[in-house]
């Protein structure tokens, strides 16, 4: 006699069915055998785990529907007339328009200390280093928490950039994501391999598309350093699901900062595996939202080596219906002694109609570790506000100054002062525009 399906099995079957359906009519790019195999494997992973659903533990606070539908909802293209962030800096520019590489707007793909190539080109070569990275870190990052949108990306992404860094890159590589078409749905997949002692700064900016699904895989060999600063686009209705997967060797350094202002929905996931001793991983973000805005930082850091340090510093400024989500986890594996892990997630709620949902998690299997978390939610400090006003600073300006001060701790995670200044400039701009209505 057939057993009636349990509720859990029924939900899983529905998720799997949704995955099959989602993959039914999509175009899977074709390339060399290894690339086709990686994409097929990603398809199989996705079908096995199913599409994300609201009942999933890690999708409780953020509804996945608008990120999983076959068609993206349209998003108006924001015309600001301002110079884009990082414009004044010397960097190697790589431009994608609605998720498609634009040769005309990009610099030639060459720079001392790095090999750089489009994914499309790398994936068509029978022998390529990217074979050992493309979809590999993503697949590793599917356990213990599933990340179906990243598997979808590995299966579908036709474009992106692959970079192998052998020395110290002479200037930052800057990925610029332009959004031109209202209904665009973009999938980009980047792979970065840092050889021993290599050093790269990666910049990203722009809304990319109406809906953007991006995976960034970063493999750091021993003593490699990776600095990452991104500013996600300001288009109000845009949606984005991004993943960073990083694997870290001995004494390697990974630092990532993300600024998010506006956007209807942003889910930024980061999965960092610290496999070599004495590695340092810092991931930080500042998100400012007003109105129809949901920003979700979902971070998973695994300590699997001795004496590693990890920091999560996330600040959110929310008002008029904006929602912030933080799901941060530190997993300390058996034997990962002397781990120093800290996570801080704070929100500044500028009115009563804003919401912050935080779920810090620590899971520790070693006994000689220092791990902690701090999560707070509060309003502007009345004492500080009065102090500023008593010195003649009007309320609105004083509130902005205190708001900037609130996010400063996250911005301080950016090592290069020029990049920090660029970010602060954008923060000030956002606050000023809100103040002026």
């Amino acid at each position, binding site marked *: 006699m057939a057993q009636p399906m349990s509720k859990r099995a029924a939900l899983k079957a529905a998720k799997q069915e949704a995955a099959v359906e989602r993959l039914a009519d999509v175009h899977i790019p074709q390339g060399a055998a290894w690339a086709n195999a990686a994409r097929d494997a990603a398809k199989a992973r996705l079908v096995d785990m199913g599409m994300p659903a609201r009942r999933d533990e890690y999708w409780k606070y953020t509804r996945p529907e608008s990120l999983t539908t076959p068609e993206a909802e349209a998003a108006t293209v924001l015309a600001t007339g301002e110079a884009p962030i990082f414009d004044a800096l010397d960097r190697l520019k790589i431009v994608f328009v609605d998720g498609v590489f634009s040769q005309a707007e990009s610099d030639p793909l060459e720079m001392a200390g790095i090999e750089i190539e489009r994914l499309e080109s790398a994936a068509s070569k029978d022998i390529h280093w990217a074979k050992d990275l493309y979809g590999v870190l993503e697949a590793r990052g599917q356990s213990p928490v599933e990340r179906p949108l990243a598997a979808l990306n590995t299966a579908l992404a036709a474009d992106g950039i692959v970079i192998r860094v052998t020395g110290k890159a002479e200037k930052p590589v800057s990925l610029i994501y332009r959004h031109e078409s209202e209904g665009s749905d973009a999938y980009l997949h980047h792979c970065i391999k840092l050889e021993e002692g290599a050093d790269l700064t990666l910049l990203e900016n722009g809304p990319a598309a109406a809906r953007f699904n991006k995976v960034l895989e970063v493999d750091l060999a021993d003593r490699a350093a990776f600095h990452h600063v991104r500013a996600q686009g300001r288009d109000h209705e845009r949606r984005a699901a991004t993943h960073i997967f990083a694997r870290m060797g001995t004494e390697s350094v990974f630092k990532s900062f993300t600024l998010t202002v506006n956007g209807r929905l942003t889910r930024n996931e980061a999965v960092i595996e610290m496999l070599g001793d004495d590695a340092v991983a810092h991931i930080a973000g500042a998100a400012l939202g007003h109105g129809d805005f949901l920003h979700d930082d979902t971070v998973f850091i695994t300590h699997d080596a001795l004496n590693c340090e990890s920091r999560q510093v996330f600040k959110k400024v929310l008002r008029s219906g904006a929602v912030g989500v933080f799901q941060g986890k530190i997993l300390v594996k058996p034997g990962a002694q002397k781990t120093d892990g800290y996570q801080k997630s704070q929100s500044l709620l500028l009115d009563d109609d804003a919401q912050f949902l935080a779920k810090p998690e620590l899971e520790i299997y070693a006994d000689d570790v220092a791990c902690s978390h701090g999560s707070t939610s509060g309003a502007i400090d009345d004492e500080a506000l009065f*102090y500023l006003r008593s010195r003649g600073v*009007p309320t609105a300006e004083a509130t902005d100054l205190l708001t900037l001060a609130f996010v400063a701790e996250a911005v301080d995670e950016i090592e290069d002062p020029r990049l920090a200044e660029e970010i602060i400039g954008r923060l000030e701009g956002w606050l000023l525009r809100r103040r002026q209505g």
Partner: protein
Amino acid sequence: MLEIKNLHVKLEEEDKVILKGVDLSVEAGSVHAIMGPNGSGKSTLSYVLSGREGYEVTDGTATLEGEDLLDLEPEERAALGLFLAFQYPVEIPGVGNMTFLRTAVNAQRKARGQEELSATDFLKDIRAKAKDLKIDADMLKRPVNVGFSGGEKKRNEILQMAMLEPKMCILDETDSGLDVDAMKLVADGVNALRSEGRSFLVITHYQRLLDHIKPDVVHIMADGRIVKTGGPELALEVENNGYADILAEVA
């Protein structure tokens, strides 16, 4: 300069009356001191004048050069030339001291219809004034009052006063938490700012600050009123005999 008439104030939340009819007139260029026992309403007076929330004025008036203070926002009072040196200066993590001062100076200039100070002029001005108060470059760079000692916080208040050049300065227990050397430094800073067009109201519990900042007029405050007014000798009387005698005398 500052005219306070029959000022009655209660706490908004507790329905507790703190000031019960304060009358005070501070002439331009003069230094007045208010002394009094704990709980007499001295600090409340300074907060009400500067516009802190949580107090309700139930009667009376307070004007600065004829302008009604009580209807104005704190920042408007500051732009008119009122300055309160806090008893407990507030720490503001994340805001650099220099940024804070430049924002304040320029906000006041803007409110008065003056042009903003250029970065160079501001720097020149603040460096000179900071030097007089023995405030080093590091203190200017650090976040406002964060990690400052008691003395550093009070010197920072005086630096703000020097930069903002107010007409009416209220010093709320500026001597609290200061050792003798720090008090002298703060007093020197205040004395350097004394001028014909600038008045001071020095609120203090003890006479010792008044050895360094010599007042023209001394008021004794008790139970929400000014109960006695005199010359500097009144402060000495408090020092020698305490408040009990004076309070008994006026009771």
